[in-house]
C-alpha cells in the first residue's frame, strides 16, 4: 500500500513539474492556459490521492480536496481564457485556427 501511494504521488509530482515547465516555455496565453491547467489538475489530484493512500486515516478528506480541485480548476481556467480572448490578446504567429472569430463571422452573416 505504501509503494502504491509513493508511485501515485510520484506521477502527480512529475505532472506538477511539467505544468510549470510548459507554463514557462510556451509562446502564447492560450497555450499557457492549456499547459498550466491540464497538467496541474491531474498532478494535484494525483498527489492528494497518493497522500491519502499512504496515510489511510486521511483518505476521505484528501479525496474531498481532490474532487474540489477537479471541479473548480477547469472553471477558473476557462474564465481566464475567455477573459484573455475578450480583452483582445493576440494569438501567436504560427496559429492556424481561430474558432471564436469564425463563429463571430458566422453569426454576423446570419
Amino acid at each position, binding site marked *: 500500500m505504501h509503494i502504491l501511494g509513493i508511485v501515485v504521488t*510520484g506521477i502527480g*509530482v512529475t505532472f506538477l513539474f511539467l*505544468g*510549470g*515547465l510548459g507554463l514557462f516555455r510556451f509562446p502564447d496565453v492560450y497555450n499557457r492556459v492549456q499547459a498550466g491547467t491540464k497538467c496541474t489538475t491531474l498532478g494535484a489530484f494525483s*498527489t492528494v490521492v497518493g497522500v491519502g493512500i499512504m496515510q489511510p486515516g486521511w483518505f476521505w478528506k484528501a479525496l474531498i480536496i481532490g474532487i474540489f480541485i477537479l471541479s*473548480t480548476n477547469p472553471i477558473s481556467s476557462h474564465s481566464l481564457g475567455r477573459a484573455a480572448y475578450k480583452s483582445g490578446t493576440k494569438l501567436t504567429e504560427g496559429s492556424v485556427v481561430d474558432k471564436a472569430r469564425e463563429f463571430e463571422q458566422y453569426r454576423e452573416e446570419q
Partner: protein
Amino acid sequence: MSITMIVFLSLIGLGLVLSFLRMLSGPTAPDRAVAVDTMTTIIVASLVLLGFILGRYVYLDVALVYSLISFIGLVALARFLERGF
C-alpha cells in the same frame, strides 16, 4: 524525511519557481493571472504533501480553505479582466 520525499519536494519547488518566473516576466496581464492560477494549484498540492511529511492533519484544512479562496479570487480577477471594473 526520506530521500523520496526530498526528490518530490524539489520537483514541486522547481515547478513553482518556473511559474513564478512566468509571473514576473509575463508580457500581458492574462499571462500573470494564468501563472497565479497554476501557482495556487501547485501550492495546494505541496501543502498536502508537506502535511504528510510533517505528520500534521491541520494542513489538509489549510489546503482546502486556500483552494476555495484562490478559486473565488481568480474568478473575480477574470471578471475584472473581461469587463474592466
